């Protein structure tokens, strides 16, 4: 039985088509929906992890009910984010990505609104090569079934959008070098004294 490449291609196509479909629905002028990425039906669903919001911060419109001052300035609230904002040139400003009028959305250069669940489209605007790689799984991480249902991670699941550079990690311990492998007579005992070579 041949591997179902055709089905795969179909579902991949559906996945890639889904975001533009969502956007199309929005830009037609309807009420902004809290759109989540609808997984295409079929055997090869590829699902997204939720955007990593701080507890209680979303929807933004619970505070921001109207457009605010668009000029770059020091903020009183969200000052912690502003202090750690390190994404591109020093002139980077919140409203470069966050939509002023509709705070529950992000926006592209051309003004098109992007829901947070599809924030990768915004990232992809500048980081096109990474976006293309991410769409086919070359960039970023996927878990699950290599021949079936996968879960992919949004850009923001790994890269904080405000400070996207990947943080250094503490490495796990190095391997035991051969001269210290030693031996012990009892399993799981604390390392007995090692026999010294002559």
């Amino acid at each position, binding site marked *: 039985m041949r591997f179902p490449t055709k089905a795969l291609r179909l579902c991949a196509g559906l996945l890639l088509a889904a975001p533009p479909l969502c956007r199309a629905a929005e830009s037609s002028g309807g009420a902004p929906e809290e759109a989540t990425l609808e997984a295409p039906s079929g055997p090869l669903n590829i699902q997204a992890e939720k955007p990593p919001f701080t507890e209680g911060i979303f929807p933004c419109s619970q505070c921001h009910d109207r457009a605010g001052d668009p000029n770059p300035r020091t903020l009183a609230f969200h000052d912690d984010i502003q202090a750690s904002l390190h994404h591109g040139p020093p002139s980077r400003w919140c409203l470069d990505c966050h939509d002023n009028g509709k705070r529950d959305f992000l926006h592209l250069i051309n003004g098109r609104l992007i829901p947070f669940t599809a924030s990768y489209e915004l990232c992809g605007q500048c980081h096109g090569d990474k976006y293309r790689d991410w769409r086919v799984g070359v960039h970023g991480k996927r878990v699950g079934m290599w021949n079936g249902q996968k879960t992919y991670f949004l850009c923001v699941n790994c890269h904080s959008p405000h400070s996207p550079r990947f943080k250094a990690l503490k490495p796990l311990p190095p391997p035991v070098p*051969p001269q210290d492998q030693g*031996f012990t007579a009892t399993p799981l005992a604390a390392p007995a004294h090692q*026999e010294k*070579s*002559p």
Partner: protein
Amino acid sequence: MGMIDFLAGAVRQVRTGGKTYKGWVGILLAMIAVGLAGYAKQWRLGLIATNMRDQVTWAFYVGNFTFLVGVAAAAVLLVVPAYVYQWKPMKEVVVLGELLAISALTMCLSFILVDMGRPDRLTHILPGLGSPNWPSSLLAWDALVLNTYLVVNLSVAVHILYKAYRGEAYAKWFVVPVVLFSIPMAVGIHTVTAFLYNGMAARPFWNASILAPRFLASAFCSGPAVMIILFQILRKTTGLEIKDEAIWKVAELMAYAMFFNLFFLGAELFKEYYSRTEHLLYTEYLWSGIGDKRALVPYAWFALGASVVAFLLFLIPRTRRNWFTLNLGAVLIFAGVYIEKGMGLVIPGMTPDTLGEIYEYRPTVNEWMVAVGIFGLGGLVFTLLVKIAVPIMQGTFRAPDAAPESAAVAH
């Protein structure tokens, strides 16, 4: 039945002897006991009782095995003059070479056995019961040729000795073809062992075409050195007649082998040092160390010095015929080849390892104990075989109903 008498007589032979003999056998038995104690610990704990690790996965045991295959192959240095050139002085002593080969092979097989992680699964290499990997695995080949060579030597030696015991001429139709067959077999066992190393592209130090020729050349230096010394000991202790010319001829043939041994080494060194690729690293580790990792360096230079001095001593007829310098040369070349072909071959092949790591291996006390035990075993096998063979060769161990006019090991 003649065979039963022979065996009973043989047992009598090995049980009787003077103080020296009994003392010597006592030492060998003590060595074997030490070996058994060491192996018992290894059996219980696993090979972790050695200092071998993934980085240096073959070491002392395999090094000894490799050297001893050479000693076993060297019996051919006696067989060729004796049976191909029908040279009488050699014909009288050739069976001793075969007995040495048998002892060496016993040691070889023992070293393999103690190096295996699962010796209880030895049957897996047998056809029928197991699944030997023909024809691609060199170790499967080695198992075949080593055991065939053992059978060849055993059958010829036992036949000749038994026939002499009975005062009868040995069956030429059987002995001559089998003995002549043992010549390519001797070359074969050592070539196969060389190919075992040679075929590994992962180990550039071994992956050199010259390895098989080097193995043969060094085999023909080291094995006969043992025989030269043994012949002199046997002459003194048993009164067995071994002509000086036989010993000197062996030494002369060894001189040619030593030349090739040194020449091949020189060829290797030129290639490594002149082309100066990444592969030089392994040769460098052996001869000059890498950084502060220099464990093998003194041994490498000692082995080279010993081999050169031995070559000169054997080359010059005057020193070759002088018993002191001859024996000195024999000891030196034996030591030199033991280092060069044992640890001096196996360890640099694995250091640095395939991922560039340098783990300096030294045998543990346990490994020494097991090795001592196996050398004791080989020594015991040889001693007992010689204790049976020499009286037969001298005519003092005869079947009760043997023909009266039987010469010592008639040819």
